[in-house]
Each structure stands twice: as C-alpha cells, then as structure tokens.
C-alpha cells in the first residue's frame, strides 16, 4: 500500500511567536516493498516526518494518501491506518510493561479487537519473525538483554500485521552484534514478506549496507532522495549539514586522489574490497 505525501508542511506552535516550520513542502512517494533509510541531523524533521505517516501528527497543510485515500478525509478510519502503518519509537523497550514477553506482544492485536486465538497466533508469528528464542516467551521482559528487549518491542508492533514498518533508530545503544542481528532480521522481514520498511538512523554505515533508497532531511526539507551510492557521493554537502558518508566513501575518495582507478560510489566494505581488487588488477573479485 503506497504512501504519498503531497506538499506536506507542518508548523509547531502555529500562530505563536515560537512557531517553527518542522516540515516544509514535502513531496514523497513510498512504493510497496521498498527499504528506505531516512537520515538527517538532530532536529532536521525526521521524527516529525514519520509521525505524519501514521496520522499521529496532522499536517498544517498538504495531503497524505495511503493506498489512494486521503487520510485527512472526514470519514477516513485512522485506527485502521495505525494498524497498517506500524511505528517503532526510539528506545521502544521503555514501553514494555506486561508480566511476560508473550502477553506484552499480545497487547496490540488484543486491542484491535481480535479473538484470543488469532491474537496468540499473531504474537507467536511476530516473536518468531524477530528471532527471539522460545525460552524467553514467558520471561519478564525486564529480565531480557538490551537487544532482546528491543526485539520483543518490535514484535509487539509486528503483531498488528502492519503493511509498512517504520523504525526510529532501532539500533541506538546496542552493541555491534546486536545492531547487525536486528538489521539483518528487518532485512529478512522485508525480503520475505514484501513489507515496506522505513528506517531512521544515525549510522551511515548501517544505512549504506541495508537500504535501497535514502531520504536526506535538512531543515524540514528533502535534501536528497536517491540510492545510497548517489547520496553518499555528495559527502561534502552531507558534512555541511551535520551528517557524513560511510568510512568507505572516504577511503575510496582518498585512493582516487592518489591515482587509483576505483569506483568512488561503493559504500559498503564488500563493494569497496571489490573495486580495490579490480583497480589493482588483482584476482577476479
């Protein structure tokens, strides 16, 4: 179910002296099944943007269409929208509250008014999808490790069976392995179920590795909207707005400066290794 944002503008504290334009005339299309990364410095409008996508914030002007319907129409069912567009907030484990993991994951579907059997089936399915081991299902969520808690919280959103999953910095504070585990699991979810994923991240390396498309936000506007290779080739402009490129971009730019014929668009370690081998005429990488 595609989402279309049509000239969306949002002003915090409108008609007050403190008015701030958080989103400024945003036009975007998110087609089905894409893995989209959203990057931008603190305060660039990323979080405001994603909260529009499931109707938590209403645009000051402009329209948002979900599956062809205007979500600001008077008789539009926002509750349905919120179950189809799942939003995982930053540090979602702070929202865990039930006595055990399984009951916590059941909370969402139960509130959708589903019967007990369907609720439990969905909870099992969601916990399996995030790769949480069985023996943890009946433990208190507070006894899990950081990475496990985070996965339990993501399962709680998945149990609502969203078509679109939006995650706001799902790996903040996790160790490198926990980071990889969660992102790999999300990638698998996207390829296996065709779910659309929007990932807000401060890690350029993670974004380069996993997403198909990057939206760069700056001062409430879309600065770039392209493939990782293209976006990171603007590394100087990205630095000016408080971002950076993955370290590989810097390695390849340096090598190019020293006369190596490398592809400077490679953004991941694997791609960089390949282009360096080729530039050295080394093996058939």
């Amino acid at each position: 179910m595609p989402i279309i944002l049509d000239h969306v503008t949002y002003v915090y504290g409108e008609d007050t002296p403190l008015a701030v334009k958080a989103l400024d005339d945003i036009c975007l299309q998110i087609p089905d099944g894409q893995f989209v990364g959203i990057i931008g410095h603190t305060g660039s409008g990323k979080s405001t943007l994603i909260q529009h996508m499931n109707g938590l914030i209403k645009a000051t002007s402009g329209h948002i269409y979900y599956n062809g319907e205007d979500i600001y129409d008077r008789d539009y069912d926002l509750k349905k929208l919120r179950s189809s567009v799942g939003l995982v907030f930053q540090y979602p484990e702070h929202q865990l509250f039930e006595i055990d993991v399984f009951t916590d994951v059941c909370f969402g579907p139960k509130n959708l008014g589903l019967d007990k059997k369907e609720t439990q089936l969905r909870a099992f399915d969601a916990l399996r999808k995030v790769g949480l081991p069985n023996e943890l299902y009946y433990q208190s969520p507070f006894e899990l490790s950081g990475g496990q808690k985070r996965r339990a919280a993501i399962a709680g959103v998945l149990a609502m069976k969203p078509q679109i999953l939006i995650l706001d910095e799902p790996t903040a504070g996790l160790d490198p392995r926990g980071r990889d585990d969660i992102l790999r699991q999300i990638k698998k979810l996207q390829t296996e179920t065709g779910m659309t994923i929007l990932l807000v991240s401060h890690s350029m390396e993670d974004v380069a590795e996993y997403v198909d498309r990057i939206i760069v936000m700056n001062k409430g506007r879309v600065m770039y909207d392209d493939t990782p290779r293209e976006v990171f080739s603007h590394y100087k402009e990205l630095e000016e707005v408080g971002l950076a490129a993955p370290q590989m971009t810097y390695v390849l730019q340096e090598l190019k400066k020293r006369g190596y014929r490398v592809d400077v668009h490679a953004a991941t370690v694997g791609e960089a290794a390949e282009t360096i081998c080729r530039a050295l005429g080394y093996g058939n990488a």
Partner: protein
Amino acid sequence: MDIIKTKDLTFEYIRRDEDGNVEGITTAVDKVDLDIAKGSFVAILGHNGSGKSTLAKHINAILNPTEGTMWVDGMDTTDQDKIWDIRQTAGMVFQNPDNQIIGQVVEEDVGFGPENMGIPTREIWERVEESLRAVGMYEYRKYSPNKLSGGQKQRVSIAGVLAMHPKCIVLDEPTAMLDPSGRREVVRAVRALNQVEGVTIILITHYMEEIIYADRVFVMDSGKIAMEGTPREIFSQVERLKELRLDVPQVTLLAYELQKKGLRLPDGILTVEEFADALEKL
C-alpha cells in the same frame, strides 16, 4: 602513578522474586584487576551486559564492590568520609544529555557542580568560563539548553563535570544518541581535554572508530577483562572481537577482507591514511 586501580573487584546483583526471596546471584563484575595511569586515554569495550557500566559506576562510588577494592587517586571508594573527594576526582557523563542538564541557561547548568562544592562565586564564574571554552561551547553560555543539538548538550554535560576540576572523567556511551556531527564534536572535545588539560579519560562506547586514538583498550566479557592492549593490538584480532559481539572500524575490516583475498596488508590498520599508505607500498 595510577589514578584508578582495582584489585579483585567483584560486584554481584542479588535477584529476588516478588516476595523478596533470593532467586539467584548475577556476577556483573568478576575479579577485575585494573590499573589506569594518570593522564591516559582509556577505552572500555564490551557487548551489552558485559559489565562495563557496572564497572564504571564503581569509579565514582555510585556502586560499591561486593568483594575486592577500587582505589581512585589512592582513596578506597568504600571510605564514606572520602566519598565527596572521590566524586570530585572522578566525574561521570552518561548517555542521555537530557537527563543530566538541569539549568535553564547553559552557564547556570555548568556552575551547578562548583556551586554545590561551596566554591566562592567569583571562582565559579572563572571555572564556568574555562570549562565552556575547553569544550568549545563558550559562545552558547547564555542559551537555553533546550535550544541546543544533542552533541552540544552533551558537551555542556562534560563542561559541567569539568567545572568541578576532576582528575578523571568517565564517559558511559556519551555518543549513543547523537548524529554523526554530534559524535565528532564530543569525541574531539574529549580528546582535547585529555591532551591539553591532561584529564584522564575513560570512554565506554559501542562505536569502534571513536577509540582509535586511545592509549589503551580494555574489552570486557561476562564481567572479566577479556582483552587488553593498544587499539592496534586489539583491532588486529577481528575474529576474536566478533566472538565477543564487537566489531572493528570499517577501514580495518576492509584491510582484513583484502588480506583474505591475498593482499599483503599489515594487521590493525586504523585510519584512512594508513590504509592508503599501506596500499601504495604493495
């Protein structure tokens, strides 16, 4: 002279059920012996739950050891009479800047620490100024902390600790919530404090590229020190680090991948320049 020293430091959490009966004991820090030299820049790595933060909280006596001893600048941290001296010697900065800032104005927030220590007003202002200059936030002294970015807020938190004139600052994942430029700002400020002011730095982080300039790295696993060495020695052991749920900087990984393809690059490359130089020498 060691500013931080531990011997057999052990910390156990006692888990209890709802009725308060003991269910079991978790050993978060397990017989750790540690020596940190005055003026050095030390990094502590380790996966979630490896005991890093528990260890760090011993340094300014937020936690006291179950067994063993922690000395800060020669003072035993269990000595109740010395607790304020210990906390003044070793300051701490945490992950979330919003939980650490209390003032309405930046300079007021930075002055809070020395004010509590009973420092005369004129000296408080001197300390506030020098601390804010040291982290590059002096121009923002009249701002409300709410108007600052994450990296700026975190630098204000560091200035707040610095104004208490500590000999040592412990930073527990200070960059986890920051964007790339915020991370850069904080790491740069921390390095400057170490090199220019000679403050001992203990940095806990999950971002491997932040610690390539550290003098020493300790890697923790299940409450113990699993690895110890210079960044180059530590990052030469890619497979071992992966076993410990950690990682290496991307350029180090690139060199490692190319080694596997047969390129004869040295182990433990840490920066882009080193990598390019090594490639040219092939």
